[in-house]
């Protein structure tokens, strides 16, 4: 510690620089520099700096000063120079305040240019300093109103000066690739909401040959794009195309890219794919032997030529029209799936999931398939949302958690086993029949009940009886169910004295709160020291809440009461 008293003197300068790099925001760094000699000295070696136009603008409004955003970026890069490893510039919120140009000297420069961070001049101002070759990470989020109408040279300029860059993320820009140089050290590239003048991605493939991670989120300007990257491991591709420039939607992954990929996530842009069948699945199965996770969204998918993918353990198909009516090809070609999510998958007819290693399944299906079947002996978690299948077969003896949203059970229901079922959530207008099927003679310890949004409550009279809770230790009454239960005061339970082992109860209160507790019969059946959580509706008055919270516990002093809010 210095004589004047700076405990930070006791830490080596390199460590203080590391700390400042984790602080990174230039405003905070400015405060550190004024607070401590040790931090001031370390600031010249700060490895990571981030500048936000919106944050700077707020500080100026609070009385701070500061040069234009673009020059600040250049100045800090020049100041730290060869020690700078990571630079993040964020102008995505503009100045954070419309028309905030009061600090601009008239005639000096166009205020609009100051927030065009991806233009060649702006990039060169910091990249051409001693920081350029030292930088390992660059993250630029441009200001879309300034960047969308003019092409920018950020990529070629960065490739010219930042020879050792490893990670690059550019957002909200129109980017040219003219003059782009090869960047052999770049392994991570993310382009988000970019219009890219590289229709087929050939410049990207040629100049970034060592990419291991590629994220293309909302990248437009593409036509027959192909990824050809031999070392690629992870690819996330979300297309937001106008549809006019994409003639073929061929999600091709050539031989060189395939074998190293472990995760692929592609979300296509609707509505184009609805009338254009894609061969993504067979192509991926042909080339990506080591793929373990695959997610495809918004597409019409063929399964012709689909090969077995023994390493695939996680598959998610969302809003897909699938040419595999009964899922037999899916079952055959993805035999080792542990997790399967089918959300909004159409084109199905009597689909049957038959996967021996499946552990988790989330299936949301329309009313089109007349029968649904799941044969999965090791399935532990099942979330099923359907309408009213005529036939429902759940051959899932190991399921411990079941979340079922269904209008009505059909005439043929086969739910064998479920010997391990302990956590059950049912959302249905026909609770009576469902509870008989899934609760009776089973040791359900956690029960969550809900009604669909369009429901009235008459079914509750038959459904809710004391036997329901006699072996349940935790009950959650979701909002609509709670409301109907209390509205109709379904208390045939008052005629029963059935001590339950209910240890936890959660109820959602409607907006208007009664003076007396509307679920007393439930409390009469709670175990001693039961924990009751009451969630008041956000619109309910404070007075009513306080009254309830002070009066209700008086009748049940042994219960532990907790209070919260829902909306």
């Amino acid at each position, binding site marked *: 510690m*210095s004589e*004047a*008293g*700076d*405990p*930070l003197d*006791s*830490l*080596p300068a390199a*460590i203080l620089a*590391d*700390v*400042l790099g*984790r*602080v990174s*925001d*230039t*405003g*905070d*760094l*400015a*405060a*550190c*520099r*004024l*607070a*401590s*000699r040790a*931090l*001031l000295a370390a600031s010249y070696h700060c490895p990571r700096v981030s500048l936000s136009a919106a944050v*700077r603008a707020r*500080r100026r409004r609070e009385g*701070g*000063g*500061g*040069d234009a955003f673009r020059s*600040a970026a250049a*100045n*800090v890069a*020049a*100041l730290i120079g060869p020690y700078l490893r990571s630079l993040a510039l964020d102008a995505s919120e503009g100045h954070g305040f419309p028309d905030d140009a009061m600090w601009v000297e008239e005639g000096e420069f166009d205020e609009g240019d100051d927030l065009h961070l991806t233009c060649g001049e702006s990039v060169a101002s910091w990249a051409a300093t001693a920081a350029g070759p030292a930088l390992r990470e660059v993250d630029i989020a441009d200001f879309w109103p300034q960047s969308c109408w003019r092409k920018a040279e950020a990529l070629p300029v960065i490739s010219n000066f930042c020879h050792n860059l490893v990670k690059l993320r550019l957002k909200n820009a129109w980017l040219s690739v003219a003059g782009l140089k090869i960047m052999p050290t770049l392994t991570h590239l993310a382009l988000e909401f970019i219009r890219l003048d590289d229709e087929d991605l050939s410049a990207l493939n040629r100049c970034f040959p060592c990419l291991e991670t590629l994220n293309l989120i909302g990248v437009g300007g593409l036509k027959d794009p192909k990824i050809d990257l031999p070392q690629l491991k992870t690819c996330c591709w979300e297309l937001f195309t106008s549809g006019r420039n994409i003639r073929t939607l061929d999600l091709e992954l050539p031989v060189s890219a395939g074998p190293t990929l472990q995760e692929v996530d592609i979300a296509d842009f609707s509505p184009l794919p609805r009338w254009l069948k894609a061969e993504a699945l067979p192509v991926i199965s042909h080339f990506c032997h080591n793929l373990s996770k695959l997610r495809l969204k918004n597409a019409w998918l063929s399964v012709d030529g689909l090969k077995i993918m023994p390493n695939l353990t996680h598959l998610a198909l969302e809003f897909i029209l699938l040419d595999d009516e009964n899922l037999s090809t899916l079952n055959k070609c993805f035999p080792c799936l542990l997790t399967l999510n089918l959300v909004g998958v159409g084109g199905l007819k009597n689909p049957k999931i038959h996967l021996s290693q499946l552990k988790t399944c989330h299936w949301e299906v329309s009313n089109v398939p007349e029968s649904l079947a799941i044969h999965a002996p090791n399935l532990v978690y099942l979330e099923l949302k359907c309408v009213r299948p005529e036939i429902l077969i759940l051959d899932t003896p190991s399921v411990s958690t079941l979340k079922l949203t269904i209008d009505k059970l059909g005439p043929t229901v086969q739910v064998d086993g479920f010997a391990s079922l302990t956590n059950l959530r049912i959302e249905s207008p026909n609770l009576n029949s469902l509870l008989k099927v899934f609760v009776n003679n089973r040791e359900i310890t956690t029960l969550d009940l809900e009604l669909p949004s369009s429901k009235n409550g008459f079914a509750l009279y038959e459904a809710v009886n004391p036997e329901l809770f006699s072996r349940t230790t935790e009950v959650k009454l979701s909002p609509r169910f709670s409301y109907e239960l209390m509205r109709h005061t379904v208390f045939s339970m008052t005629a029963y004295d059935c001590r339950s082992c209910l240890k936890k109860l959660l109820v959602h209160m409607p907006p208007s709160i009664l003076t007396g507790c509307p679920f007393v019969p439930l409390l009469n059946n709670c175990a001693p020291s039961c924990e009751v959580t009451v969630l008041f509706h956000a619109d309910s008055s404070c007075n009513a809440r306080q009254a309830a919270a002070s009066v209700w516990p008086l009748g049940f002093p042994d219960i532990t009461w907790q209070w919260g809010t829902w909306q």
Partner: protein
Amino acid sequence: MAATTADGSKVVGGGEKSNVDEESKMITLFSSDGERFEVTQEAAAMSQTIHHMMEDGCVDDEGVHLPNVGSSILAMVIEYCNRHVASPDEKEDIRSFDAGFVNVEHHTLFDIIRAANYLDVKELMDLCCQTVADSIKSKSVEEIRELFGIVNDFTPEEEAEIRKENQWAFE
């Protein structure tokens, strides 16, 4: 945290007391004030400094002397290493442990940082440096000084120079 065994050596966390217990693969560490700690080799290897010494065969039966690390801080570092080695996959538990571990006075935190730096325990360095950084964020100059007990000794001229440079590059 540490238990003293029959011969006066300390066992911190798991592990049998033994200098040469092949089955448990223990290693002896000596703090700067002469306290002795028995640690599993796996936990000790979280320190790249000690790990390289073990690999190079520089660790004899006597153990490793750490002249730069006092006993109270070494005990804490060992506790950290033992915990992270014992349950590396229980992320919630580890997060909770880490949060409690760094909830100490700043001078203790700085001591841990210096020890972790000397011992080259990267995860511990990351944790502690991030903690210091998080405590600095969004604070004013005065708040930072108060936080660390810093007495301002900048002259008005020095302060003016710093402010000028701040306006040019940082604000």
